[in-house]
């Protein structure tokens, strides 16, 4: 009898827990860290160590082992709560912006967040005009990814004035 009660309680707890976790997965927290990676001029390169902005602590190992730049500087960090039916745009330096549209979490029981990521660059049209026309956006990158819940993916490459833009995109459901 006691065993039956325990088994039933566990079953009940499990059924109660299931909808709770489904409800909490209607939104995710997205964090975008903007980094500028740069090379020193060859004349200054020498033996100098890689310069790492201390604010990049969590990403330092990844940056230095994956890339060959001489310096990594923190530019900004933005965070947003995004609904699964929605998309959020993060403004980035120099006319870039990134849109994150989470699609689903935990398909097939996995712990992966599925999302559509689009990197835009605003292009002023009609140079010399007074910019009355709405600026258009070029889609520099559009990618569909499945990221481990709580994980980070690095996106980068677009040249900006100080070097190359690198973004650390993290998501947690």
């Amino acid at each position, binding site marked *: 009898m006691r065993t039956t009660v325990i088994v039933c309680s566990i079953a009940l707890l499990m059924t109660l827990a299931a909808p709770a976790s489904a409800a909490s997965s209607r939104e995710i927290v997205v964090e975008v860290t903007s980094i*500028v990676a*740069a*090379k020193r*001029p060859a004349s*200054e390169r020498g033996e100098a160590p890689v310069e790492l902005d201390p604010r990049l602590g969590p990403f330092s190992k*990844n940056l230095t*082992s*994956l890339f*060959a*730049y*001489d310096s990594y*500087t923190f*530019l*900004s960090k*933005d*965070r*947003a709560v995004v609904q699964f039916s929605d998309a*959020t*745009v*993060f*403004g980035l*330096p*120099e*006319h870039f*912006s990134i849109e994150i549209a989470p699609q689903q979490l935990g398909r097939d029981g996995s712990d*992966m967040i*599925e999302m559509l990521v689009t*990197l835009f*660059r*605003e292009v*002023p049209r009609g140079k010399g005009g*007074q*910019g009355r026309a*709405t*600026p258009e956006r*070029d*889609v*520099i*990158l*559009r*990618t*569909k*990814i*499945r*990221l*481990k819940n709580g*994980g*980070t*993916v*690095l*996106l*980068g*490459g*677009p*040249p*900006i*004035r*100080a*070097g*190359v833009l690198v973004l650390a995109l993290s998501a947690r459901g």
Partner: protein
Amino acid sequence: MRRPCRFERYLTAFADGELPERLKRKVEAHVERCEACASELDSIRASDRILKSHGAPAVSNDRWAQFRNELKLGLDDVDRDSRRVARVREARPVYAPVRRRAYAVAAACVVALFVILSVGPLGIGPWHGETAAASNECIVDSIESLAAGYTPMFFSSQDPEMTVIWVFSEEVEGGIRGEGPGAK
């Protein structure tokens, strides 16, 4: 989080002092009351400081040359026998120019191969053994660029576990033209 403000497009020129006087005054006044533009301007000026302290931006030519060479080898494999599964090594670039038609089909194959290798034929299970609870596992299902002059690729490494999605820009690649597979 914010949406781009319509004044943002003038900020770079404003920071450089390149705007005509009237527009300059408009932007100046706008920045006074727009927090988004003020912080954007700060970041442009921060970029400028970095630029001044490090000189002209460049990328590691060796790195790009190696990256592109490995890509070419991968694509050649696919060209030779699209059924043969190319081995995925650590930090191997696995995508191809979307714009360059010559590579487009091969690229699709590489991506398909990568996805198969990544998630297995049934789309289940991680692509490289056990993963820690807080791993950075990431599967790239699709990747493209719709803008001229940009070529997206991705690669994954196991230690540290990280997926990198990289957009090559002709602007940056200029330095290694003549070495890479796209060389003319």
